[in-house]
């Protein structure tokens, strides 16, 4: 029973305290400076404070809390990736998700729906089987199912997809879930804030001081900070921040768009992703259909909307669900996806001492928010890459040791 709500009812004043303390100015120094106040940055701050006792931390966010990709993604959480490194990593994240709302005492609407990656070609079925086998090996629920299982979970689907691309089967991942993305940022933010972390919004980093290969400070539009540890968690802005410390990375940025329908009565339970049609759909707790597709096919650091996106997405969506013809699209938006050549992230220590990177999150970042916070906080606290992220180092590209997630990441978000 939601006793909390009774408390509201019986009190005259709104009893809730501020979630995020407002700080009038930056301190001259912090033990750790985190650039980026999205889910990842805030999660790292949270675990630094909670698990490592490091609270003299500031999170610098150039816009508003959670205003980057955290507030723009389509909220899919899953662990059915392709490589052992990926699977173990995302599985740990899914484990952390289970109790996150309780940790925060904040409802994240974490909803376990089941996730189908539809296969329309035999090549896709093969990749599905590969993922299923790797997942099962590590104890993660994944299996290849036939079209009848898809039909059972979504009886109203047109299995022939308008006759163009019949569904041959799917990779079914029972733990697939969705959550309220903003709330995750708020939960981590409040938790960090409560423990003494300072969150500074509207604070833009203009430069990072590196002396003798070590970080010594950060310059912002609200003043300069000296620090020995900087964590960069800025997604699409990663190339720009890396420039500040002279690090090259293979990250390239493409826009990623999404759209949402008017609210309708719930009819879709599972999360559906189509590799061939390059579209995915789920239905939120508000009854809105959240839909997305693949990246815009060119590099641009922009969050602008284009019209061909909802056109193409709608055409493919109506292939699968023709009855959505008279459902209306309310809004479209975009974020910037920081992509890597192997569709796996770039995490951990860098050639600059004291500068830690959490980037290259492409289209796979939201689901990793908790495990990112956990592993990056460990890494920053100990100046040692956490075991779970050793497959994601920056130097893997130089060493030709890529972590090949291309079969599992693109489109399946």
């Amino acid at each position: 029973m939601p006793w909390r709500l009774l408390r509201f009812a019986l009190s005259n004043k709104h009893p809730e305290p501020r979630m995020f303390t407002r700080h009038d100015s930056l301190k001259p120094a912090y033990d750790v400076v985190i650039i980026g106040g999205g889910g990842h940055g805030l999660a790292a701050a949270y675990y630094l404070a909670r698990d490592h006792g490091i609270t003299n931390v500031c999170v610098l966010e150039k816009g508003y809390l959670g205003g980057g990709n955290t507030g723009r993604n389509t909220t899919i959480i899953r662990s059915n990736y392709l490589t052992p490194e990926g699977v173990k990593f995302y599985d740990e994240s899914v484990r952390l998700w289970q109790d996150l709302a309780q940790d925060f005492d904040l409802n994240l609407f974490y909803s376990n729906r089941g996730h189908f990656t539809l296969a329309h070609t035999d090549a896709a079925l093969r990749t599905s089987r590969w993922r299923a086998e790797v997942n099962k090996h590590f104890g993660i629920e994944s299996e290849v199912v036939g079209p009848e299982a898809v039909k059972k979970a979504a009886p109203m689907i047109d299995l022939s997809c308008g006759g163009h691309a019949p569904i041959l089967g799917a990779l079914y991942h029972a733990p697939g879930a969705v959550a309220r993305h903003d709330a995750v940022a708020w939960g981590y933010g409040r938790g960090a804030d409560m423990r003494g972390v300072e969150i500074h919004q509207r604070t833009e980093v203009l430069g990072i001081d590196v002396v003798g290969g070590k970080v010594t400070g950060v310059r912002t539009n609200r003043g300069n900070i000296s620090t020995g540890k900087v964590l960069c968690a800025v997604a699409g802005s990663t190339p720009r921040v890396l420039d500040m410390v002279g690090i090259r990375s293979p990250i390239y940025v493409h826009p990623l768009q999404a759209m949402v329908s008017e609210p309708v009565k719930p009819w879709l339970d599972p999360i559906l992703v189509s590799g061939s049609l390059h579209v995915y759909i789920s239905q939120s707790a508000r009854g809105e259909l959240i839909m997305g597709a693949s990246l815009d096919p060119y590099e641009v650091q922009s969050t602008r909307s284009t019209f061909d996106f909802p056109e193409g997405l709608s055409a493919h969506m109506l292939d699968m669900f023709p009855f959505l013809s008279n459902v209306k699209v309310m809004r479209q938006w975009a974020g910037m996806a920081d992509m890597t050549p192997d569709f796996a992230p770039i995490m951990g220590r860098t050639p600059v001492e004291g500068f830690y990177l959490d980037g290259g999150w492409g289209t796979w970042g939201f689901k990793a928010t908790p495990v990112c916070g956990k592993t990056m906080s460990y890494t920053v606290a100990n100046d040692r890459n956490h075991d779970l992220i050793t497959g994601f180092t920056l130097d893997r590209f130089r060493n030709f040791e890529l972590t090949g997630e291309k079969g599992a990441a693109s489109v399946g978000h």
Partner: protein
Amino acid sequence: MRLPPQSCEWVDRSQPLGFRFEGRDYSGFAGDTVASALVASGASVLGRSFKYHRPRGLLSAANHDVNALMQWGGTPNVRADATPLIAGMDLKAVNTFGTLARDPGSALGWFSRLLPVGFYYKAFHNKRLFPLWERMFRAMTGLGRVDFATKRLHTPKRYGFCDVLVVGGGTSGLSAALAAAEQGAQVALVDENARLGGSTHGASELVDKVIAHPRIRVFTDAYAAGYYADHWVPLVERGRITKMRAHAVVVAAGAFEQPAVFRCNDLPGIMLASAAQRLIRRYAVRPAQRVVVLAANADAYRALQDFADAGIAVTAVIDLRDKVPGEQAARVAAQGIPLYSGHCIVEALPAADDKRVAKVRVAALGEAAVVAELACDGVFMSVGWAPAAALLYQAGTKMRYDDGVHQFVPGQLPDGVFACGRVNGIHTPESRLLDGERAGSAAAAYCGFGEVRDIAVKAEMESPTHPWPIVSHAKGKNFIDFDEDLQLADLENAIQEGFDNIELMKRFSTVGMGPSQGKHSNMNALRVLARATGSTPGAVGTTTARPFFHPVPMSHLAGRGFTPERRTPMHHRHAAAGAVWMPAGVWQRPEYYAVAGQSRAACIEGEALAVRNGVGLIDVGTLGKLEIRGPQAAEFLERVYISKYAGLKVGMTRYAVMCDESGVVLDDGVVARLADEHFYFTTTTSGAAAIYRELSRWNTLWKLDCGIVNLTGAMAAMNLAGPRAKAVLEGLTNVDLSLPFLAVREGMVCGVPARLMRVGFVGEWGVEIHVPAEHGAAVWDALMEAGKAHGIRPFGVEAQRLLRLEKGHIIIGQDTDGLTTPGEAGLDWAVKLDKAFFVGQRSLMAIAGKPRRQQLVGFMLPAGHQGDAPKECHLVIEGGEIAGRVTSVAWSPSLARHIGLAYVRPGMDAVDSSFTIRLSDKSLVTAGVVKTPFYDPDNLRQKETT
């Protein structure tokens, strides 16, 4: 109630229309909207609100009335205030539990104290119980209902072009359109209403002039969905979308009249003054009998005339302003209407037995004491406007807050974008006319038509918008957002909880996130935030304006949804032969040819055996085919492929593998040298387009003396293979069929010029025959005819897969993935690191010094293997760890064994060793490593020279 005929009314009384709403019969006229017909019939409750299920009526009659969403059969979320009435409509309110009249959901209102802003974040997250709560939320959420029986609607889209696009057909838009057209521009004018004219409701000379003008194309009943780069604006009409490309855009979209915020400001009968005017003038509907007018601007006083004309008794005018301009006060006095200046409505109350407003309580601004209780059955609010500036924001306009008119106005407009009228902060009718002229002239001049005319427009003398039309009340129910049922306290609480910037406040409270996307709520919310944080509206700013202006049906966005298909010239031959199709990108290829009474597996086996023992013919026309000529053609190929081609003899072919810069295998094919400076080469089906693009890009950089031509669609190709193939071909060609293995010849086949390549993909004597596409079908026919005597069979992709597997040949993308390097795939022999340069060389050199991660090997299952065989991508398990995976596997009828290819760890690849494969049911299968080719290991059959 329906009024006597109004001049220029939009209804056609000669066409009465009957319809049903919530099970009751009503009638209206052609030209009514659903809402106007209902209000004309006396209905005041049109829907229930989303959260509290409070009865709601009409608010704007301007397509913002989300509380009047209806279900029309299988169509959800029909907007009653903007949908034309059609005879026989049968409508229901959305999201009611029970009926509109009796909705038990309204009990939620009693619990509103338990449901403050963000309440659902504070509770219901007990891990065990959440699924239960979620079911409850899902039962309550959502508005209309989808109908799975709805058929796919095809609403064709089209493009449109103009010089100047004017968005909005009110006074300033009409004026802008005329000015631009007069200067010679082709103008498109779009307005979402059924008629032009805006608040003049269509009755004006201006409208007539615009309609008559030969250079103005009018789109009514259409709206601009958004602004996209380069002045691209989709116009959403009732039946389709016109994608309009303009050279300049004039945004004359007007402004949304804003509601006042006071306790129970949502009661049916309380509406915007402009809504009442629309009902009266357009539909001849009187929405109330005795009203209180809540005013704060000149518009309110102009409206009084409309109310008087409609026979509406105005009980009183409550003006938020202390000082009401003399001219306005005089109007009120002349009609004997009491004026309460410096006062506000603090509360509205319904009648005891009805849901409609019955009286309002009035107090002096800022004071709690009620000074009057006025009986009424309607309240018309005219307290201010918020600009309809979404398109301006999307175009990149820098807006600024103007304290003179208390609204955001354009500060800095991008090139080619112009604004006029209310959206530009100009509200007085005469000024709007001039402002439109100014903007239209400037837009036309921008496009090269005429000169910019210097037209001065007076700034507004008084503000048309009150900066704080908001009254607090201890008992709440003073709504800011009617879509989301958000009260003033909700926003104040959200701010207090730390969601104190405009985006966070929106996301936490959901203000502006409903279907009307904040048209009536964003401005007031912004004001609340500014006041609560000691800031100003200009500093607080607005949330990101994104398309669409109104929600757009998916059918309109999808349009016809073109899905191009490619077919080889022999397509119909395959169909006639019983081909079962499989998609290969945009191509269709025969998977196999169905034979009556035979299973798929049997058909495939039969095709494969025909090739092994007789002769088969396969259409390989989907392969990429490229031609390169020039003195540096060989040099080019040296650079893009990993093997050597400079020394390839004229008349010979060579297998070709392409890698990317990181040394990953991208594609494979065959290179044929037709002359010193002339090569013809193939790529995989899926790689063709991308490879041609990439090669063109490389040559743009390298500038080698050679030219590349893409012949993929221009050439048909087929592979004739088997021990009888030569016999079939003999007599059909002038090419000497004793040509050596891997040779290429140009000659005639069946009377047409052809290129023949003796290849070995399937492991029998075979030639790949390439002819111009127009001859493909004829050559196919001739070969099939000649082959009849030899039992020729067409064979498809699956048979070919099996045949090539028996020879141990890899398929790119199946036996390789996004990270496979040549060595891992057994292609070390093809890598010539001693070349001067090739794409990927540097990476392969670096990789050569590293331990290999995996190795592709051939394997066989033991003879007489019982039970399931492994499938592709089943894992190789060693010591409990993943040690590799199967990439190809099949039952070989020629060898009577299961054969396959698999990646294993280095060290596990010794011939005659064995490894374990795990099936999906966790059972294990032992496989033995064997050398490839499995079949005809010395390749005698494909190389035979007799």
